[in-house]
């Protein structure tokens, strides 16, 4: 789809802990890991809760809505797989749902438009049937 960015970078190495996140992405569902016992967010997911020490984690659905917490406009490529994709926007996205921040991209946006606080929503980059990457675009209208 339109949001495609550097497919050569979209190589995943999921393990038993992170696999459910990427499985959900394939269903176009954004989820985040939290502790079943105390509710503390664990993103990226961890097998043991650093807050309470209990093990089980649960995957909560996120609305996919958030805002730009901080960002950079990457104008120089520091990776051969990205040479054709500069400039691009890397951002820390604060999800509206919970105290979750994700590193992602802001796409479908002019560089002048990007600012801290910009409301965004998730958009799915279907790299392949196996690999789907969540990125974010401005909320319109």
């Amino acid at each position, binding site marked *: 789809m339109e949001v495609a*960015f*550097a497919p050569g*970078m*979209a*190589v*995943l*190495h*999921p*393990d038993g*802990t*992170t696999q459910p996140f*990427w499985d959900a992405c394939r269903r176009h569902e954004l989820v985040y890991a939290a502790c079943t016992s105390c509710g503390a*967010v664990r*993103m*990226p997911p961890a097998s043991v809760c*650093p807050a309470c020490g209990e093990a089980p984690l649960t995957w909560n659905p996120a609305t996919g809505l958030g805002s730009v*917490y*901080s*960002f*950079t*406009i*990457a*104008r*120089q490529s*520091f*990776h*051969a*797989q*990205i040479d054709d*994709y500069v400039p*691009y926007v*890397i*951002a*820390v996205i604060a999800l509206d749902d919970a*105290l*979750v*921040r*994700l*590193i*992602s*991209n802001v796409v479908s946006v002019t560089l002048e438009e990007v600012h*801290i606080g910009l409301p965004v929503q998730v958009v799915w980059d279907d790299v392949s049937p196996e690999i789907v*990457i969540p*990125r974010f675009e401005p909320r319109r209208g």
Partner: protein
Amino acid sequence: MTNASIAGVGATKYYRRGRSLPRSVLELAVEAITAALADAGLSVRDVDGFANYGGGLDTARLAQCLGVPEVRFTATQQGGSGGCPGSLGIAAAAIHAGMASVVVTVNSIQQAAYRLGRGDSTSGPYTAGTTSDLDFVMPYGLVSPAHKYAMIAHRHMHLYGTRREHFAEIAVSTRANAIRRPTSVMTKPLTVEEYLSARMLSDPLCLYDFCLETDGAVAIITTSAERARDLRQRPVRIIAVESGGEGQHSPIWAWAASPEDYFTSAAHGAVARRLWDRSGLSPDDVDVALLYDHFAPMVLFQLEDYGVCKKGEGGPFVADGNIRWPDGALPVNTHGGNLSEGYIMGITHILEGVQQIRGTAVNQVPGAQVALVTGAPASIPMSAALLGPER
């Protein structure tokens, strides 16, 4: 106070990236170590320990090339340049424990086959990662340290009104220090206007916010304070040295979710608090600060982390001329730093700290009694040391 002192320092010249070829990384290291031993008045036959960081070197090969008769101790800090002054802590601990008597700390770098700032290097200390954690970072093109520090700087600007002119003051003042030194790679002054009109590489970071890419080696010789008193140079005591960082927020992907104060910092808060607590000193006691400068804004955030100025006030603090040599309240990176002298993964900061305390620095702070030396704002371990004269 540790009971270890720095007895000798040595360095190769600093080359622009790749220009040290056909010399090898090992050859550069041997040159720096040999120079440091001569500086101390010691022989390679006195060396029995190695304490390194940033990936280190193969001690077996290094000892063989140098002619070290027997290695009793060798250890390397995890991580990258964050652990630079922390390697002095490893040396001091080994000396304190009687596990070594003369310890070499060396960094030797040659960015010909790889470049540290890139995300696709297949050799060198930072190779391209393939882990389940990095899946939350790499697909988005966050491949260079620059990208991370740019976002930290941006948030700091947003919250505190910090401006590019403030970052410019760091780049410009550091360059002014560098051009007075024959060792520096950068030889021409930098103006604020040049800084502000420079190419943006990763907004808000421009070309002059980035450290240099250079080749070279620096070595430090640490021994007991008692032994150092009888050697050639005025000993420089390792007053205190601390390593580590906050357990919950250090890795790059956890940093994104850390509390606001932490996100907009150099992540040195925990190390800084321990350094002051355990040394009994305060920021007011520091005469010269050698702060790790991979990216200019991170110098400003370290000034805040170490309590030199208040949180959020780093911009106005530097704008008032406080970090300028020789007249500022706290001259910073008098050697020209990673930004303008040479980038040897931060060990030039230790070298300058030693020379300031000896009283032999090119840009000498008169009567300097306490030098603060820091490693990179990075993942755990970060580290810092306080150096002072023998009393």
